[in-house]
């Protein structure tokens, strides 16, 4: 794809914050963000696509010295990226949580798609970004496309077992038809894992809905962005259902054999409807290996 076309179609949102291993001093020289940006730039073939780093400014209050040192590190890293031909900048206006930063970013976003990329992920292999975006152009029902950090379950039985209360997703079904030129699976929920999202859907629909349900001032700081969205999704599911019980109060899994297939029909319908109406998909199929690595399992937020 022509570099200008790609740049005008996609941009990358990179939220970051000071990280600590235990209670030690913060990791100012955050190697994860360097590996993260480099790997996604290279393996996605992003050319001039812009990465915008957003710092969580709540850390300014907790550790001003650490925050300033981290900012200095980021600015010098951006210069290194420039030398490598990677278009990275630091946002001038930043908020106090990932969600606030994300909403600030969306307001000024002019591209049709955003790659949502927390600072501690690494892409492991090449992906055809052009084909993905072409498919999203063609199939406007895809609003969210998640990259997976778990090898896709190898058997249908394992695949079906996704539908338990312990799993983030309540649905994971491979699309067998050849309507899409990329491998896709149906899933239930949006998460903070690296993903490509359709800006229009998030900006015009999800963010206003979320602001009504959980206003930013009531939003719990930290890693709660996806949990807020999950609350919104389950509220939406409830509006479909007539079994008069909140879906999470059901005995999970919804059937004795861990398969939704024979479960409460009201719940099954609501799960499918929510997926189809929100357009939430996973990039992958049964047997596919993980394509991203989580680099930040060792650390905690300060």
């Amino acid at each position: 794809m022509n570099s200008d076309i790609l740049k005008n179609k996609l941009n990358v949102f990179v939220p970051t914050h000071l990280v600590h291993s235990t209670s030690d001093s913060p990791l100012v020289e955050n190697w994860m963000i360097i590996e993260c940006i480099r790997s996604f730039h290279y393996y996605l073939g992003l050319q001039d696509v812009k990465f915008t780093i957003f710092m969580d400014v709540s850390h300014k209050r907790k550790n001003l010295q650490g925050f300033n040192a981290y900012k200095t590190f980021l600015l010098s890293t951006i210069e290194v990226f420039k030398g490598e031909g990677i278009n990275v900048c630091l946002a001038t206006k930043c908020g106090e949580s990932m969600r606030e930063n994300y909403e600030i970013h969306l307001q000024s976003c002019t591209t049709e798609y955003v790659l949502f990329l927390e600072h501690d992920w690494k892409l492991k292999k090449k992906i055809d970004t052009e084909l993905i975006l072409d498919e999203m152009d063609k199939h406007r029902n895809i609003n969210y496309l998640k990259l997976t950090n778990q090898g896709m379950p190898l058997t249908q039985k394992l695949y079906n077992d996704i539908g338990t209360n312990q799993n983030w997703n309540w649905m994971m079904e491979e699309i067998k038809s050849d309507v899409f030129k990329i491998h896709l699976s149906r899933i239930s929920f949006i998460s903070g894992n690296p993903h490509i999202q359709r800006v229009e859907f998030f900006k015009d629909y999800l963010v206003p809905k979320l602001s009504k349900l959980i206003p930013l001032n009531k939003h719990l700081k930290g890693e709660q962005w996806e949990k807020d969205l999950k609350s919104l999704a389950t509220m939406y599911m409830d509006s479909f259902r007539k079994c008069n019980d909140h879906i999470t109060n059901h005995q999970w899994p919804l059937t004795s054999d861990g398969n939704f297939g024979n479960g409460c029909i009201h719940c099954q319908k609501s799960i499918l409807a929510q997926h189809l109406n929100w357009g939430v998909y996973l990039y992958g199929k049964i047997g596919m290996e993980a394509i991203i690595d989580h680099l930040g399992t060792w650390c905690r937020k300060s």
Partner: protein
Amino acid sequence: MIEQDINIISFLCTGNVFRSAFCEKYFNFKFSGSRYLALSRGTNLFYNLVDDRVVQIAENHKIFLKEHRPISISEDIVILSSKILIMDNSHKQYMLENYPQYLYKVQYLREFYDDTLEIGDVKRSNSKAFDENVANTFTLLSNSIDNMIIE
């Protein structure tokens, strides 16, 4: 697999803010315990929200459209649907032009009610006639769905 266990019926109109949106909610309310799930989609979206007065009139039928978000028809939904119930000839033309191989799934909703095929749109206005037309259309839509027999 949820996808295989649930039978999807799609209601198709133009803007997905009036006729098909009402049908989706009414069908899901009426057949809530069945293995049928209704969805609604549009061929040419032009509003982001359902008109406030349409919302009010739908509430008289205990149908709540305030939170409804219009969505365009897509190939994935066409494939998943066992039936695509349309409102007027423009929708048949749309299906013919875009998804001719799935035309066998297409049926006029009004066929369930009488021999007249079309259920027309109502143009937005502030007139009293608008309210009456909306109410009449809702009655026609609900009567058509009431006549549907599902397994």
